[in-house]
């Protein structure tokens, strides 16, 4: 295989593959910075994928689809928020519950949607916009500067998120909730409110990540389209060491292996291609082995917060 010849294709696939992961991971970053580990991302992405697809097809407006999809994600994540923040339920258990319920709702909705009109099975795809000049850069130009508008917005989100956490007062307060919520409470910070806000942001961004799959990546929806990305997002946050820029790097890396998988499949069609398909998942494990640290991350991450302590 001529690696250099296929590299541009791989890089293009890398950025495409990185975007849904990046969106979802950024959402999870907000959640974990507030001390909430949300393993239900997979389910939220499914909801975002379906609703984004259906509304986009129904109204003919992909951006409206994205918006409604994000709202649906927020709604679903409010279930998670209520259970974990107000009822102090175990975060992992609640996340799993979301993972079971949300894709079911998505599948149900899809069956109804296509059942009513079989033409609904195929939607439209967002067009790529090439940035003049930059998109002609050899090798990387096509990959980074000929993408959909949603992809560009996602990349712009990275420095914005980073700036928020580093330079805004509310960013500092936000972080304190994930590190030591009791300390934050004594300083008058409304811990419960911040946790709910984190869930709103996480729900919106994760759903956007899912919606990207059905309105930019492909023009269709299938059951299981998320393919474990919601869980890879959890690894991305760890691998990216809870920083927006780190998460960008990690997402691109995962996206690269995803792209590699597709390129290998195209090149070696005779081979048992399923081994190539394993690559992104095995890579995630290897990344965690080498870069996952036992004690990193917000100190109070994953712990339930009881407001009035007895």
């Amino acid at each position: 295989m001529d690696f250099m010849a296929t590299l541009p294709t791989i890089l293009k696939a890398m950025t495409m593959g990185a975007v849904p992961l990046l969106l979802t991971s950024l959402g999870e970053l907000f959640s974990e910075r507030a001390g909430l580990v949300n393993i239900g991302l997979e389910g939220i992405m499914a909801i975002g994928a379906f609703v984004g697809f259906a509304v986009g097809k129904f109204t003919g407006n992909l951006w409206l689809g994205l918006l409604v999809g994000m709202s649906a994600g927020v709604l679903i994540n409010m279930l998670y928020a209520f259970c974990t923040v107000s009822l102090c339920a175990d975060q992992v258990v609640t996340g799993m519950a979301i993972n079971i319920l949300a894709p079911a709702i998505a599948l149900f909705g899809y069956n109804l949607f296509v059942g009513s009109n079989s033409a609904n099975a195929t939607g439209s795809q967002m067009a790529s916009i090439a940035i003049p000049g930059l998109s002609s850069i050899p090798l990387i130009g096509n990959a980074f500067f000929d993408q959909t508008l949603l992809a560009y917005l996602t990349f712009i989100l990275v420095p914005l998120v980073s700036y928020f956490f580093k330079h805004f007062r509310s960013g500092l307060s936000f972080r304190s909730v994930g590190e030591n919520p009791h300390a934050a409470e004594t300083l008058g910070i409304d811990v419960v409110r911040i946790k709910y806000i984190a869930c709103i942001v996480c729900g919106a961004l994760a759903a956007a990540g899912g919606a990207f799959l059905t309105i930019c990546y492909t023009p269709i929806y299938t059951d299981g389209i998320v393919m474990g990305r919601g869980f890879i997002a959890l690894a991305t946050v760890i691998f990216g060491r809870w920083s927006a820029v780190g998460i960008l790097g990690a997402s691109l890396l995962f996206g690269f292996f995803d792209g590699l998988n597709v390129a290998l499949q195209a090149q070696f069609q005779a081979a048992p291609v399923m081994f190539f398909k394993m690559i992104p998942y095995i890579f995630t494990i290897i990344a965690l082995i080498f870069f996952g640290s036992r004690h990193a991350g917000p100190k109070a991450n994953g712990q339930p917060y009881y407001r009035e302590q007895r």
Partner: protein
Amino acid sequence: MAELLRMENISKCFGSFYANRDINLEVEEGEVHTLLGENGAGKSTLMNVLIGLYQPTEGKIFMHGKEVQITSPGVAVQHGIGMVHQHFMLIDDMTGLENIILGDKRHSSPLLQEADDHAKIKELMDRYGLGIDLNERVADMSIGMQQRVEIMKVLFRGADLLVLDEPTAVLTDLEVEGLFDIMHSLTDEGKSLIFISHKMREVMKISDRVTVLRRGKSVETVRVSDTTEQELADLMIGQKFTENTYQKVEAAEKVAFELKDVSYHSSIKHGGLKDVSLAIHKGEIFGVAGIDGNGQTPLAELVTGLIKPESGEVIGPDGSKIALFSPSSFIDAGLGNIPEDRNKMGLVGDMTVAENLILKQTKSDRFSFGHGAWLKMGAIEKYANRLKDENDIRCTSVRQTARSLSGGNQQKVILARELDAHPKLLVAVYPTRGLDIGATEFVHNQIVAQRDAGCAILLISADFDEVLKLSDRIAVLFEGQIMGVYPGANPPIKEISLAMAGK
């Protein structure tokens, strides 16, 4: 002097339990007012009501004569009330500056203005003599500096009334002097301090007035100049307080446990051990005194098999050098352990009292057939009930979860379990932490009884009085090193105190 704070008829109940009942507290401007009471008397609850973490079930609060509703910590801050907690409320990963300005609502810009805040804080630091490295991560700071950050948090928000909850617990004598200096400079400017402590000597030294709490009620408020330590102690207990004294022995016989030049993480001053040598004899209580954080935890972990020494030798009850460091091998060799944190380390909270009592014996023939293949539930319950009666463990049933017991009863469960195994070496780490006088006495009596029966006992405690009371010999830990070993009978307190501060 003018009245600053008045808490009138404050009651706070949790379910059917009254933590505070009809408490009256009045603090003047510019005074140091001590809140005195034993563990469980209701001091923390009352202060949590004051700073808005709890809402009072009944009663009113007045600041400068006007009634106020303190519905949240934010509101308390607005009224000029701030608290320095016993267990610091700091974000370890953030710098001193970030911790101080966190959540401050007085700014117009949503962006951080670190330079401005830095200047403001520096001015306060100079005014009150609080030395802080603002750019250092809290996790890297000394305990003393962390405490100063806590105090600065409160001053930065313009507090006129500061509550200091057991601030001297983690300080050396020298640092306590420094704290008292800071307190004086605060009161000189008209600020008021509520000082919570149970260390009589300090209370007499620093306070203007003292309010004594007992079993949730305010008993009396006296001027320090009008009273004595003995009187205060009597008020605290509710009856003539006689210090329970124990006979000290000199056990020169068999060594039950020995450490020879043991080191562990020796470069770390607060968390390591350096060239520690000590020998514990059968039938004696060997007490280790020192300020918390000077090596007590690694010492306890070493002696219970949780960590391995990096150099040096450890010699076990049978006289031979220990090669394998694991809790189970130590337990098999006759170790009994009353750990530092009963909920985290001693008990499985969600298991029943009975299950906790037989925690280490599930494979024995007494409680199972076939070496653990079928548990004898009936035998287990009978045994648990026997221990419950013998040790006065107050619970409705041994089928209750351990978590649902009070602190004192939880400790009784641990004691019952450990002592019934007739250990050769009993390690007790801060065994009366958070317990009231009754439970404390029970624990102390049990420990002394074990000593009299021939057990070797290692008592590690940050409560100096406890160590003085029980130990037959006293060693002092400072920054991971043994500073000296002193006799328990007629101990040279001055010398020991100096040793605890590193001299």
